[in-house]
């Protein structure tokens, strides 16, 4: 069965001086969130999100679920996974890179096994597949020290 998720955005004015709002998402889990071109392309300290930050959040969450699923299927359900995704955006070119980093607490598994499961999650999670056109997707995976 297909799953649908929605978002609604309003924009006022031109690109450089105008601003937008992600007014609502279907689940109501977040919003409204303000967006603007300066916040997207220049200064991240203004506390405004951007398409690239939302893509980073989508990829990190998708990857984490795929990895939790893969580890559990292999008999080593994780206690905890901490994942970050960093999306690189070059105006005029597009999204050029996603860097995934994950640290895990997984009883009974060694580093090599964890890295193998993480590579599989990176290859198979739906957001990875949707972003297959990105030139470079990197993965740094290790168990918690």
């Amino acid at each position, binding site marked *: 069965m297909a799953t649908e*998720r929605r*978002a609604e*955005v309003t924009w006022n004015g031109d690109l450089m001086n105008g601003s*937008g709002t992600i007014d609502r998402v279907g689940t109501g889990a977040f919003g409204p969130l303000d967006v603007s071109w300066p916040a997207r*392309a220049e200064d991240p300290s203004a506390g405004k999100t951007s398409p690239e930050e939302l893509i980073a959040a989508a990829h990190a969450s998708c990857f984490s679920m795929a990895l939790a699923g893969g580890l559990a299927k292999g008999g080593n359900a994780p206690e905890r996974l901490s*994942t970050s995704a960093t999306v690189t955006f070059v105006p005029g070119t597009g999204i050029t890179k996603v860097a995934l980093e994950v640290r895990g607490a997984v009883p009974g598994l060694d580093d090599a096994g964890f890295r193998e499961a993480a590579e599989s999650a990176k290859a198979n999670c739906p957001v990875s597949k949707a972003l297959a056109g990105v030139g470079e997707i990197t993965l740094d995976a290790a168990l918690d020290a």
Partner: protein
Amino acid sequence: MPRIERSATVSWEGNVARGEGLITGETGAFAELPFSLPTRLGAVAGKTSPEELLAAAHGGCLSMSLAGELTSAGTPPERLEVNVKIVMDEVPGKGHLVVASEADVVARVPGIDADRFDAVVAAADAGCSFSALIRASASVTVRARLEAT
């Protein structure tokens, strides 16, 4: 051109069927949004999902691209409303895939005619980095109409 980086972090506890995660954006615009597998695939209970975040990303990307193209055409918009629906489905032999993103745009743009508007919408879709990326593996449709000014 400058390279711009944006990050988000996720913490996950437990297996996929019964575990739960939290999503935080580095700008602080959103923090500790909960998500889980049951709410990703089925009933929503105020929890977001990767696909909902992609819908929000696509809406933000398209609205900015359209504002930029309309301004370049000499007709900056007064207001744009962009609704995006992301569809994920289970495809035989391929597992779960994002199969479609469907955008509906209502625009209030003084001084533009319908033909010119259609051309600008097509340019904005082509220029939105996220449209270009997911078109490689999913269908992307943008339906746009002008509102009376």
